[in-house]
């Protein structure tokens, strides 16, 4: 019993540390909010008339492009935050606080999961802040959609956070993070259904469509999209779940001092 309490205390401490770190970095919050808002209010405005040629689920009628990209931009927040928390892990490792954390007398998987949960909670707060601003700009969703989206956001946040964790175990130095941006974030975001529906991708290239369809980020976005309209997309749910488990396993393996990448870094 005390073991469970101990584990929960540790989780609480890690989550609070994440929260404190976030609160102390107000510019990070602003940046996290500005990025999707620029896409929504500047990029999407120019493409207003680009869509509306075909109605695909979960939409029942024609929608503006702004409405279409909202779920993708929620995913973008989760993706960037997932990567950002991986960046902070690399920083922690360089500063030595990582060693302190990982030597705690608790399962490594638990510690990593706590870290993941903390960053996911922070990400979701940002997603809701973004949805609020979108709402103020009259880009509205069904009322219950805001509630129904929460579990989808949690799962998608955990998946992308786990990916960040896994990646951070492979990154030796802070400077290498630019590589993550170029080779992970951008391809994941652009090769997904965040900006264009998959049928639109198929019109230009079948290969592009297939890549997008295999991208776990696509499924995270679709999971959020359907949830925002109070619907479940079973395929997207399955893919996101599988990807979460896979990325988490990779992260645990990566941080295992006996087998993972940590051994090579010393």
């Amino acid at each position, binding site marked *: 019993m005390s073991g469970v309490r101990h584990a929960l205390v540790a989780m609480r401490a890690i989550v609070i540390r994440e929260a404190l770190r976030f609160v102390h970095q107000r510019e990070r919050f602003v940046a996290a909010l500005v990025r999707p808002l620029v896409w929504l209010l500047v990029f999407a*405005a120019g493409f*207003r*008339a680009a869509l*509306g*040629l075909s*109605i695909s689920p979960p939409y*029942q*009628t*024609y929608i503006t492009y702004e409405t279409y990209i909202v779920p993708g931009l929620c995913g973008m927040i989760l993706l960037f935050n997932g990567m950002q928390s991986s960046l902070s892990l690399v920083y922690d490792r360089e500063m030595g606080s990582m060693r302190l954390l990982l030597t705690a007398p608790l399962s490594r998987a638990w510690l990593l999961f706590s870290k993941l949960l903390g960053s996911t909670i922070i990400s979701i707060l940002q997603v809701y802040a973004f949805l609020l601003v979108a709402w103020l700009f009259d880009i509205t969703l069904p009322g219950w959609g805001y509630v129904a989206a929460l579990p989808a956001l949690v799962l998608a946040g955990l998946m992308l956070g786990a990916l960040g964790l896994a990646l951070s175990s492979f990154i030796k130095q802070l400077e290498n993070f630019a590589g993550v941006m170029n080779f992970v974030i951008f391809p994941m975001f652009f090769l997904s259904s965040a900006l264009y529906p998959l049928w639109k991708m198929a019109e230009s290239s079948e290969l592009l469509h297939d890549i997008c369809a295999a991208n776990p980020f696509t499924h995270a976005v679709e999971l959020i999209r359907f949830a925002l309209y109070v619907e479940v997309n079973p395929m997207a749910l399955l893919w996101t779940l599988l990807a979460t488990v896979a990325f988490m396993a990779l992260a645990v393996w990566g941080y295992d001092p006996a087998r993972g990448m940590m051994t090579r870094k010393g």
Partner: protein
Amino acid sequence: MKLPILTTLTAALLSSTALADEIWVTNEKDDTISVIDIETLEVVRTIETGERPRGITFSKDFSVVYICASDSDSVQVMDPDTGEILHDLPSGEDPEQFVLAPDNRHLYIANEDDAITTVVDTVTRTVVAQIDVGIEPEGMAVSPDGKIAITTSETTNMAHWIDTETQQLFANTLVDSRPRHAEFVKDGTELWVSSEIGGTITVFDVATQTEKAKIEFEVANIHPDRVQPVGFEFTAGDTHAFVALGPSNHVAVVNSDSYEVEDYILVGRRVWHMDFNADRTQLFTTNGVSGDVTVVDVASRKAIKSIKVGRFPWGAAFRPTE
């Protein structure tokens, strides 16, 4: 003992299959009518018609439906229950739009190719009068007291005012380019005429036949040339007009007192005509190019669903079934 259960079951079944109100939509390219169930928002019936059905209207008691079969050069009279064509009315050539007078007997038909308005007695099935109007007549309206009929001519750019007693023109008023649709509102004190190319609606004072206001439209990010007002309908109490803006793919909501545009709603491609449900809480727009009908919730002014119908849906008419 089983009889009451059976009766209850039958009653339940009957009530569940009880016909809901319908929206009838003419499909210009398919030569059909799609019947939409208002409860389920699904097409429940497709009925064959003459060639190129466009204008559609029900008799006041909803016992028959009149259809402008433009390329068949006839107005068809259909039994809405069976979908059977009962007979054709003499309509003149290429009938496009028409309006049933409040007497439930006389149809005023615009004959696009002949530059005339034909008045047909639906009981005797004879042409009562043919009135020369401007070139390419289209929009038709009759005042609520039945004394004035209006024809708008697309090329002459005029609203022609017809005295229904004498069947003679008594006034012609200029409107903007390509007038398409006309409606009397506010107990017949105002006449609204939409101009497709002009991109406006002109509001006339009926007593003096003078222009009272002009409504202009501007949809964000859409080129003004694509903003082409065509069909329009009024909400309960004539407080607001919903105006189809053609290839801009939007419907405008106009305050009919201030003549200000309050909202634009995204619907399907090339929206042309529309009709409401019984209590005017839902609007059904025909979207020609996308081949569907968009359902708009009038209170929230949001499109809630688009329903696939035939190719190039044109006219829409409401039919109560209860």
